[in-house]
């Protein structure tokens, strides 16, 4: 995941990083944030700065009274766990999907269960709870995702290939944070099929009749 480090131009917002650090994001957004950070040391460092603020606030809390025997109980817990020491995780093998996404897919790209949604575009909805949804999108080289607007926030992380919309060009590791104001038609680059992770906290609104009919089936 390191080869894209220096080419990433589109990063997470401070608000998303702070909410992720505080632990208040819906699961689907946390997944997009964790996946981007896996590919982007700049945002990993920014998250470290926000975690520092969290640590500082925690340390400045007035001390609560611990239960009697709390330390001994914790040491007993440690003795139990030390009987079966935790293995250090092996670094994950190279692939297209960063580790947090692989945990949802059950493997790398070849494990994704794609469903066609028309015009060569495929998607796979990932199992997340809460009021936001996440899915992988497969857009054939040169194809467009229908013109759509959003009622909420949509995060789109490029995993492979690239796309372009009226905002800019987005390559591997780039994340687009789109708010309600954006109506866009992302188009995949000609060179390679584009694979993205899209997370949204509201259903997308399509502007043409065909996707509008398809929308209930797409569950997006």
């Amino acid at each position, binding site marked *: *995941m390191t080869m894209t*480090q220096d080419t990433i131009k589109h990063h997470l*917002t*401070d*608000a*998303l990083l*702070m*909410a992720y650090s*505080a*632990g*208040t*994001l*819906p*699961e689907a957004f*946390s*997944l997009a*944030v*964790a*996946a981007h*950070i*896996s590919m982007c*040391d*700049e945002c*990993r*460092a*920014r*998250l*470290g*700065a926000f*975690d*520092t*603020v*969290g*640590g*500082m*606030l*925690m*340390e400045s*809390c007035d*001390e*609560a009274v*611990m239960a009697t025997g*709390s*330390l001994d*109980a*914790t040491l007993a*817990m*440690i003795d139990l*766990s*030390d009987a079966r020491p*935790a293995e*250090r*995780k092996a*670094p994950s093998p190279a692939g297209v999907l*960063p*580790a*947090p996404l692989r945990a949802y897919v059950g493997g790398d790209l070849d494990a994704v269960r794609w469903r066609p949604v028309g015009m060569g575009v495929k998607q796979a909805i990932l199992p*997340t*709870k809460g009021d936001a949804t996440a899915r992988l999108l497969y857009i054939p080289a040169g194809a467009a995702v229908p013109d759509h607007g959003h009622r909420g*926030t949509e995060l789109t992380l490029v995993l492979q290939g690239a796309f372009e919309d009226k905002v800019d060009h987005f390559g591997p590791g780039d994340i687009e944070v789109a708010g309600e104001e954006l109506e866009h038609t992302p188009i995949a680059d000609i060179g390679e099929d584009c694979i993205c992770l899209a997370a949204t906290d509201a259903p997308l609104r399509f502007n043409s009749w065909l996707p509008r009919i398809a929308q209930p089936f797409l569950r997006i």
Partner: protein
Amino acid sequence: MVSPAVIRRAIPRLRQSTVVEPVKVKEDEEHPGLEWSACILRIREARDRTAFAALFRHFAPRVKAFLMRSGADAAMAEECTQEVMAAVWQKAHLFDPTRASAATWIFTIARNRKIDALRKVRRPEPEDLPWGPEEEPDQEDILALQQESERLEEAVAALPAKQRDLIEKAYFGDLSHREIAEETGLPLGTIKSRIRLALDRLRHAMK
């Protein structure tokens, strides 16, 4: 500026010590945070229970208070705090004092436990970065990170009360992500650069 002796005292040269001596945790007036980092390194290298007890006495009451302010009742906060502190022992090999202070690192463990226990949702984590082949972190880097943390702490303390209040609300779970302002007003640039430097070194060492 801190003398090298202070750093040496705080971060013992762990690989050379074959005898497990109890860590004497003294409040270092200039950099109390360094002592806590040293405790976690003692746990990591020598399974040092004295260092753990010192860490527990300082952090457990604060972790518990943090969990209670985030909405846990006293019984749940006590249980979660014990689990968090046990995790500090179990995960000590993942602590990198050039990227996080002890308070920061323990906060991330407490936060994850909070999401699990209170919100009952999954929180995907970024891909783990292993420690590089260097077993012993660079003492200058540890000190530099500590100094940046302290500078940030002073800057946050100096923020207008209203702004500080909003930041506290965000971290104690009283604001949704939609309610967090795009401009946080936090001066995070220098500590971010310091962490980025540590990450670059780690990446370089992994090659």
